[in-house]
C-alpha cells in the first residue's frame, strides 16, 4: 500500500509540473496575472507530492519491505538504521527521487521567497523549473520506477555496497544534489531572462544568493566525498580525477565563475551574456554529470548500475535542455545590451581573468573526462586519462588565478592601477619573496612546485589580510574607529575574505601533504617499531572481531613521540558478507600539524601483517579550507543586501558612502 501511494504521488506530481510548466509561461506572454499566479501554488504542491513519495520509499526501506524490488536490491534487514535510510539514495532510482525532491524544494523556495520578483519573471522562472521537473519525473516514472514490486517477495535483501556504509557518504549525496540541483535555479533565471529579453543588475542580484547557496552545498558535497575517499579507500589520496569526481568538479568550477561574473553584472551592468551563458553551462554540466554517472558511457568506480534505455532517455533530455537553452541563447544574446565599459586593468578585468581561468580549467576537465569517449568513438582505441594530465593542467592555471586573487579585490572598478595596487601591497610582495627565498633555502629538496605553492599561500593570506586592513584603516586611525569600520563592513566583504582565505588554506594543505608526505609500506610483526613523521609506532598485534554486519581484522599501534605516549591507533580491515566485499578503515590521528595515517592489511601467514603508515603534514587544511569557503558563502548569503534583493540599491549606496573610499565591493 505504501509503495503504491508513493508511486501515485509521483504521477500526480508530473501532472502538476506539466500545468506549472505551461500555464504560467503563457500567462507571462499574455500578461495575464491569474495565469501567472498559478505557478507558485503549483510549485508548492509539486514539492509536497514528491516529498510524500520520498517518505513512502523511506518507509519501505526502514521496514525492510523486500517486496519492493529497489529495497530488495539495495538493503538488508541486518543493516544499521542509518544505512537503511541512506540506502534510499544509495542507488539509481532512489537517488533520482532525491534529485527530484531537491529540484521541487528549490522550486517551492523560489515560490516562497520570490515575492519581490517581477510577476512575469517569477512565473517564467517557475515554469522553466517545472519543465526540468517534467523531464526528470518522466525519467523516473518511465525508466526507473523505485516502487516496482516483486512477487513473491524475497525473504532477505541483497545489501548495500559496504564501501557506501559510512556516515560521510550517507550525507554526501544530499549535499551534492543540493548543489547540482540548486544550479537549476540559476539556469531557470537565465532562461527566463532570455525569454523576457532583459538582463539588468537586479537580475544578477536575484540570482546570486541562489547560486551562492548551490555553490556552498556543492563545495560541501565535494569536500565530504573527498574526505570519505581519504579515510575509506585506505591509500591516503583524497582526489583521483575519476570521471564521477570530475562530473561534480566541472559544475563547481562553472558555478565559481558564475558567482564572480554575476558581481560584474550586479555592480557594473557588464558581462551580461557571458553570465547568462555561465548560468546555462553550470546546470548543463550538472546534467552532463548525471548522464555520465547513469548511462555507463564512462568507466568509473562510482557508476550506478546502468541501462542503455536510461542512457538514451537522459541524453534526449540533455539535448532538449542544453540544446534548447543554448539555441535560445544564440537567438537572444546578441540583442542584450552591453552595459558599463571598463579597461582591461580594473576590478572587472580581474574578474574576467578569474572567469577566463576557471572556465579554461573547466573545459580541460571536460576534455580529459570525455577524451576516452572521443577516442573510442573515432578510433575504437580505449584509454584512460589519469592524474598526470590533470595535474599538468591545473598547476599552470591555478597559479595565475591565485596570484591575481591577491590583487583583484584591491583593484578599482572601471579603471584600475596595477602598479598602484602592487605599491600598496609592497610589504606583502616583499614578505612573499622573502618567504619563498627562505623555503628555497631551508626545505628545498628538488620540488620547485612546493616552493611555489607555499609562496602562493603566503601571498594570498597576507594580501587578503592587507585588503581588510586597508578597509578598516588598521593602525592608521584609532583602535575605536578601526573597530567601528570593521563592524560596518558588509558581511559579503567578510564572506569574500573568508572564502579567499579558504583557497589559501587548501593550497597550503595540498602543497604540504603532497611535498612532504612520509610513507612506509612494510610487513610488521607484533613488537616491531617503525618511525614515521617523528612518531614511533609499535605494532601490538591484530585480531579479528565481529561487527554488526561484518567481521573486522583490527590492528593496534601504540604511538609514542620521544618516548612519551601519544595515542593508540586501531585501523581495521572489514570483511562484509552481504554483498561479499572488503573495506579498509584507516586509523588516523588528525592534528592541525599533520595526520598520522595507518592501514592494516593482509596477514602474511607467518605472524606478520602488511601495513601502510603515512605522515601527511597539514593535510587537514585541505578540508578546513573548504569549510572556510563554505563559511564565506554563508556569510555572503547572510548579507542584508542579498536577502532583501533588488530594491535596496539606494540603501547600499548610502551605507557604502559611510565607509568612505574603501567602497562596498564584494
Amino acid at each position: 500500500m505504501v509503495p503504491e501511494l508513493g508511486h501515485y504521488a509521483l504521477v500526480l506530481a508530473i501532472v502538476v509540473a506539466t500545468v506549472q510548466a505551461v500555464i504560467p509561461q503563457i500567462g507571462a506572454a499574455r500578461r495575464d496575472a491569474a495565469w501567472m499566479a498559478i505557478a507558485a501554488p503549483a510549485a508548492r504542491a509539486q514539492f509536497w507530492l514528491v516529498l510524500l513519495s520520498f517518505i513512502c520509499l523511506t518507509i519501505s526501506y526502514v521496514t525492510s519491505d523486500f517486496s519492493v524490488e529497489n529495497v530488495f536490491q539495495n538493503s538488508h534487514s541486518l543493516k544499521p538504521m542509518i544505512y537503511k535510510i541512506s540506502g534510499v539514495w544509495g542507488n539509481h532510482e532512489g537517488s533520482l527521487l532525491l534529485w527530484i525532491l531537491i529540484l521541487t524544494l528549490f522550486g517551492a523556495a523560489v515560490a516562497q521567497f520570490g515575492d519581490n520578483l517581477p510577476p512575469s519573471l517569477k512565473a517564467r522562472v517557475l515554469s522553466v523549473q517545472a519543465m526540468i521537473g517534467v523531464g526528470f519525473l518522466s525519467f523516473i516514472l518511465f525508466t526507473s520506477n523505485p516502487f516496482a514490486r516483486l512477487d513473491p517477495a524475497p525473504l532477505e535483501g541483497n545489501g548495500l555496497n559496504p564501501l557506501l556504509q559510512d556516515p560521510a557518504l550517507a550525507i554526501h549525496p544530499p549535499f551534492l544534489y543540493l548543489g547540482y540541483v540548486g544550479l537549476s535555479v540559476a539556469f531557470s533565471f537565465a532562461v527566463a531572462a532570455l525569454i523576457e529579453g532583459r538582463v539588468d543588475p537586479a537580475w544578477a542580484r536575484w540570482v546570486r544568493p541562489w547560486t551562492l547557496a548551490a555553490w556552498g552545498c556543492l563545495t560541501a558535497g565535494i569536500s565530504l566525498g573527498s574526505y570519505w575517499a581519504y579515510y575509506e579507500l585506505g591509500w591516503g589520496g583524497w582526489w583521483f580525477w575519476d570521471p564521477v569526481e570530475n562530473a561534480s568538479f566541472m559544475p563547481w568550477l562553472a558555478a565559481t565563475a558564475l558567482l564572480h561574473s554575476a558581481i560584474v553584472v550586479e555592480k557594473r551592468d557588464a558581462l551580461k551574456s557571458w553570465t547568462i551563458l555561465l548560468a546555462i553551462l553550470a546546470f548543463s554540466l550538472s546534467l552532463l554529470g548525471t548522464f555520465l554517472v547513469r548511462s555507463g558511457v564512462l568507466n568509473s568506480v562510482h557508476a550506478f548500475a546502468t541501462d542503455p534505455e536510461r542512457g538514451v532517455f537522459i541524453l534526449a533530455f540533455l539535448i532538449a535542455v542544453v540544446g534548447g537553452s543554448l539555441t535560445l541563447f544564440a537567438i537572444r544574446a546578441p540583442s542584450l545590451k552591453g552595459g558599463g565599459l571598463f579597461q582591461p586593468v580594473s576590478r572587472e578585468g580581474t574578474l574576467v581573468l578569474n572567469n577566463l581561468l576557471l572556465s579554461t580549467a573547466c573545459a580541460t576537465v571536460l576534455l580529459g573526462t570525455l577524451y576516452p569517449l572521443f577516442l573510442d568513438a573515432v578510433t575504437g582505441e580505449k584509454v584512460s586519462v589519469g592524474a598526470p594530465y590533470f595535474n599538468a593542467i591545473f598547476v599552470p592555471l591555478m597559479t595565475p588565478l591565485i596570484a591575481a586573487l591577491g590583487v583583484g579585490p584591491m583593484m578599482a572598478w572601471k579603471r584600475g592601477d596595477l602598479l598602484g595596487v602592487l605599491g600598496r601591497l609592497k610589504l606583502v610582495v616583499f614578505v612573499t619573496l622573502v618567504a619563498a627565498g627562505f623555503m628555497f633555502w631551508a626545505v628545498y629538496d628538488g620540488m620547485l612546485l612546493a616552493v611555489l605553492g607555499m609562496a602562493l599561500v603566503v601571498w594570498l593570506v597576507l594580501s587578503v589580510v592587507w585588503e581588510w586592513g586597508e578597509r578598516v584603516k588598521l593602525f592608521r586611525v584609532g583602535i575605536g574607529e578601526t573597530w567601528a569600520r570593521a563592524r560596518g563592513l558588509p558581511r559579503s566583504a567578510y564572506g569574500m575574505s573568508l572564502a579567499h582565505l579558504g583557497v589559501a588554506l587548501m593550497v597550503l594543505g595540498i602543497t604540504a601533504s603532497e611535498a612532504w608526505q612520509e610513507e612506509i609500506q612494510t610487513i610488521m610483526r607484533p613488537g616491531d617499531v617503525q618511525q614515521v613523521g617523528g612518531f614511533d609506532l609499535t605494532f601490538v598485534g591484530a585480531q579479528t572481531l565481529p561487527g554488526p554486519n561484518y567481521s573486522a581484522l583490527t590492528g593496534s599501534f601504540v604511538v609514542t613521540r620521544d618516548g612519551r605516549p601519544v595515542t593508540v591507533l586501531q585501523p581495521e580491515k572489514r570483511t562484509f558478507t552481504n554483498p561479499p566485499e572488503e573495506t579498509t578503515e584507516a586509523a588516523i590521528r588528525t592534528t592541525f600539524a599533520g595526520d598520522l595515517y595507518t592501514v592494516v592489511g593482509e596477514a602474511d601467514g607467518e605472524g606478520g601483517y602488511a601495513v601502510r603508515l603515512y605522515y601527511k603534514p597539514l593535510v587537514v587544511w585541505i578540508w578546513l579550507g573548504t569549510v572556510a569557503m563554505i563559511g564565506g558563502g554563508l556569510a555572503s548569503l547572510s548579507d542584508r543586501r542579498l536577502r532583501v534583493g533588488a530594491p535596496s540599491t539606494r540603501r547600499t549606496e548610502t551605507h557604502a558612502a559611510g565607509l568612505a573610499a574603501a567602497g562596498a565591493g564584494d
Partner: protein
Amino acid sequence: MTEATETAAGARKAPATRWLVGLLPVVVFATIGWFLYQGLSLDPKTIPSALINKPVPEFDLPPLPGHERGLSRADLTEPVQLVNVFASWCVACRVEHPLLMEMQRKGVVPIHGLNYKDGPSDAVAWLNQYGDPYDRIGVDLNGRVGIDFGVYGVPETFIVDGKGVIVEKIIGPITPMILQEKLLPLIAKMRADAGAARP
C-alpha cells in the same frame, strides 16, 4: 570571454559576428552530444575479446633499470602465468597491488609485469616503495606491445597458458572476490589440464 573585449570596444562589432559567437556554444554542444550518443552504443567495460584463446603476440621487452630480467614471449613457459599490466601513475594498480604481493608471497602463480607507458625510474621507485610482486618485468615505454595485447586501461591482467595462449583477461584491479571465484579455480583447472596432457 568575448564580451570583455566586446564591452571595451563598444558596439563596433558587426551584428553577424555576435550571432556567430552566440552560435558557438550550440555547435560545441552538438559535437559533444553526438559523441555522447556514440558513447551509448560503446561499452567501456567490454573487452575487445579478439585475443582470448589466441596466442600472445610476439614481443621482447627490456627490463627496468636495475632489474635483470625483461619479458618476452619466450619467457611464458609455465603451465599458468599472469601478465599484469601496471604503471606507477595508475591509481587502481595500487588497489590490487597488496593482493599481487600476497599472491607472490604465497606462490600462487608466477606473475609477470608489463610496465605500460610509464617512466622507468618512476616504476622502479614505485616498486621499491610498495614491493615487487613480479618475476619478470618488461618495459613497454611507448605502449606498442600494449596495443598488440589490446590493453585499453590499466591495470589489466592476462592469464596465459603453457602454449602461450591467452586464456582469460581481467579488466581493472584484481579483487579478493575475483581471485577467489574466478582466478584460483581457473588456475587449478589449467594446472590440472596441463598435468593431464603431460603425464
